[in-house]
């Protein structure tokens, strides 16, 4: 095994593989920065080029591209409040809030560092999981997938505001999200729901136009109204801010590791989709706040809200690869496309990848590691310039941002409907911000609703009610109760602390 590990490294470091990886990284860098154009689509576009490559070169090229999109996607999310990727929207909540406080440098530093650690954890998990991958993936059946979705939905409690009023608003926003997830042709009987006679809505609301509109439009309106730069009057933190952000990651090192593990785990479970990991990690970061006063800082520019999703959306990559490599079953839509790459270079994913082609598998581990190190290092070089963008005045920035927003939304389906969805959710997002309704629960409901619906149906059709007694399901039910109760526990802790202080 060690030998294969080294062989993998040597293979990646050969000049042709390395140069393909660098090309991939360069492409991925821009794909991540630009909203709309996502990693999965780009994989599909690059696929025809790998036909004549050796396996290690092909994966260095494809994975090198794909594994850095989440890293640079975070940059756009933080600087402009526009999700660079569908998988980096959660970084906006606290990351962009920090940028508005003039802490863009710090947020970027934290995000890049946590991305790097996340990528390393994910790659390590991929390497370590190789001997135990079969039981790891196979213990998770449809009932467990349903419960994971419910666990995520239960986290809405933590993402809502404080007090009964905040709770009710969070709950309603979550319900609205679940409702939006029902739009389109239903997964079991293919009945059309809420499509209003349009063809566009058959496949449901596209996540990219929804997220781009929902998060970016309110920020752009806010920027236009303020008329200043993004960072406003606050002076933009220079290099010290970046270093501070890096230090933040080590200050919250265990949180970084835990969120990386959350990301890896979500990645391992096929069928949960790429957008879920970041939100679960964000919810976890909020839940791990010591008490309610700590919790209140989230959404207003708490660095932990940047670290959590930053780590998870990168560690997901290694996790995603586990079922893909071991079973030929892709862990996400991107991996489904990567699977085509396996066949093109003459490899059959499955048990052979863990024995005969083990060095190729390890070359993927190394590709993820090297590509992320290169990207993070390159980004650090530009970081001050990037943070400086938040000091540009609104009138110059807004046309550019609007262009990004419209293009980003339109790439979803190349349909005018994409723009309508983007603008509608932009309006909804604006009013939610204006009247202080939390937006995260809505997104959580939207990304998890479809998964919960599918797997509840499948579990019941397959097992009747007996699935409720499966051990893993019971553990997940317990965790769900904990997640739902966590804000109340935090509230009690803070009350006790206040009582102590008063006494």
């Amino acid at each position, binding site marked *: 095994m060690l030998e294969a590990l080294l062989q993998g490294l040597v293979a990646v470091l050969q000049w042709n593989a390395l140069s393909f990886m660098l090309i991939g990284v360069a492409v991925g860098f821009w794909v991540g920065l630009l909203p709309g154009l996502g990693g999965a*689509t780009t*994989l599909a576009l690059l696929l*025809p080029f790998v036909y004549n490559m050796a396996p290690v070169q092909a994966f260095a090229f494809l994975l090198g591209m794909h594994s850095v999109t989440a890293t640079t996607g975070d940059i756009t999310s933080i600087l402009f409040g526009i999700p660079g990727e569908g998988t980096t929207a959660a970084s906006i909540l606290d990351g962009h809030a920090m940028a508005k406080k003039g802490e863009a440098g710090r947020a970027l530093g934290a995000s890049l560092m946590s991305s790097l650690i996340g990528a390393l954890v994910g790659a390590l998990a991929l390497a370590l999981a190789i001997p135990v991958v079969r039981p790891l993936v196979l213990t998770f059946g449809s009932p467990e997938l349903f419960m994971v979705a419910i666990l995520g939905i239960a986290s809405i409690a933590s993402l809502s505001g404080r007090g009964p009023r905040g709770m009710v608003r969070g709950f309603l926003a979550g319900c609205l999200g679940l409702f939006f997830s029902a739009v389109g042709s239903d997964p079991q009987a293919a009945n059309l729901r809420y499509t209003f006679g349009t063809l*566009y809505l058959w496949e449901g609301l596209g996540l990219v136009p929804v997220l781009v509109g929902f998060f970016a439009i309110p920020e752009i309106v806010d920027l236009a109204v303020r008329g200043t730069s993004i960072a406003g009057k606050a002076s933009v933190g220079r290099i010290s801010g970046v270093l501070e952000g890096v230090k933040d990651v080590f200050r919250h090192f265990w949180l970084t590791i835990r969120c990386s593990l959350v990301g890896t785990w979500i990645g391992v479970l096929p069928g949960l989709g790429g957008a879920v990991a970041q939100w679960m990690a964000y919810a976890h970061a909020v839940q791990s706040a010591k008490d309610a006063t700590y919790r209140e800082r989230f959404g207003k520019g708490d660095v932990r809200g940047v670290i959590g999703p930053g780590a998870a959306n990168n560690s997901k990559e290694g996790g995603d690869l586990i079922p893909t490599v071991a079973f*030929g*079953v892709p862990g996400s839509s991107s991996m489904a496309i990567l699977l085509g790459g396996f*066949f093109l270079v003459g490899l059959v*994913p499955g048990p052979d990848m863990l024995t005969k082609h083990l060095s190729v598998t390890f070359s993927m581990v190394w590709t993820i590691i090297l590509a992320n190190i290169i990207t993070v290092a390159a980004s650090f070089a530009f970081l001050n310039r990037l943070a400086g963008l938040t000091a540009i005045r609104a009138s110059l920035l807004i046309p550019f941002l609007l262009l990004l927003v419209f293009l980003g939304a339109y790439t979803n389906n190349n349909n005018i409907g994409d723009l309508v969805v983007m603008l509608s959710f932009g309006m909804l997002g604006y009013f939610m911000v204006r009247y202080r309704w939390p937006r995260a629960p809505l997104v959580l409901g939207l990304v998890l609703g479809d998964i919960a619906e599918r797997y509840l149906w499948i579990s019941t059709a397959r097992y009747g009610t007996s699935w409720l007694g499966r051990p893993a399901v019971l553990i997940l039910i317990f965790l769900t109760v904990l997640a739902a109760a966590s804000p109340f526990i935090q509230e009690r802790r803070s009350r006790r602390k206040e009582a102590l202080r008063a006494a």
Partner: protein
Amino acid sequence: MRRVTAFLLAGLLLILLTPAYAQQPTFAGKTVTIIVGYAPGGGYDRMARMVAKYLPKYLAGNPTVIVQNLPGANSIIAANNVYNVAKPDGLTIGAFNRNLVLGQLVKVEGMRFDMTKFAWIGSTSNETTVLAIRSDLPYRTVADLVKADPALFIGATGPGANTYDFPLLLRAFLKLNLKIISGYPSSSDIMLAIERKELDGRAGSYSSIKPFIDRGLVRPIMRARASVPAIARLPVDEDLAPSETARAVMALRSVPEVIGRPFVAPPGTPPELVRAIREAFDKVTKDREFLAEAAAAGFDIEFVNGDEALKITLGVLTAPPDVVRIFQQFFKFE
């Protein structure tokens, strides 16, 4: 004034010369766009991109060929666009869902095209549907599956896909003891559920199940009409049909699979251009490099010419009303 006259004359000359040109259409300096009805990465998209890579070699003038994705509504949006918006100048080719013709048969709302009026180029590959069950189960033949007890759990994505429609008809007409569990996000999720014994088997295209057959996880039991040599000996559903109506309904479901990767041009595309594109497609599907790449990607290439594809399409749309009525009870296009 003289310059204007010269201009007009030149224009007139150009117009006069155009038909002469049209005898041997050239695509030099032009861009041919293949509009795919699905997002990048799926089977239709991958096929179109592979064709786009080799097509310039065989079209006169070696034009640029690009792929544009227009996903949505199972490719109805793309078909509407190619039918109603795209110019019939030979520079637009559509690659759509093979089942659009069945959608037209059951009169799905929102379809603003007639499949028989497209200028058919042909299909590059067929779609072979097989039913495969876990190898560790004791069942080996169709008769075994009729007697199977308890019912076998068959995973499916949803109505309108062969993972769902094929076993549905097998259960209804051949009395196979199957319970269909639908709603899995993709066929690979079904495969994983089979691996963890949540499911007993699935139907689907042979090319996607083949790696798992080779690995010994599942074994194929029967197939639909469209075939490739490797599975030619499996029993065919239609041959076992208990009645003529049942056979006709099954046939209706599988006919589009014979033209599994259809390519069409907008209605009214000049015949000489259609002929040129057809010839180019024919040559591409015989190109050795293309065949090697397609084989690596898991496609079995078999070009069905546009005339033949159109005939098959007409055949579907002229099915007897009583057959269509029964078919409608099982088939849902959405």
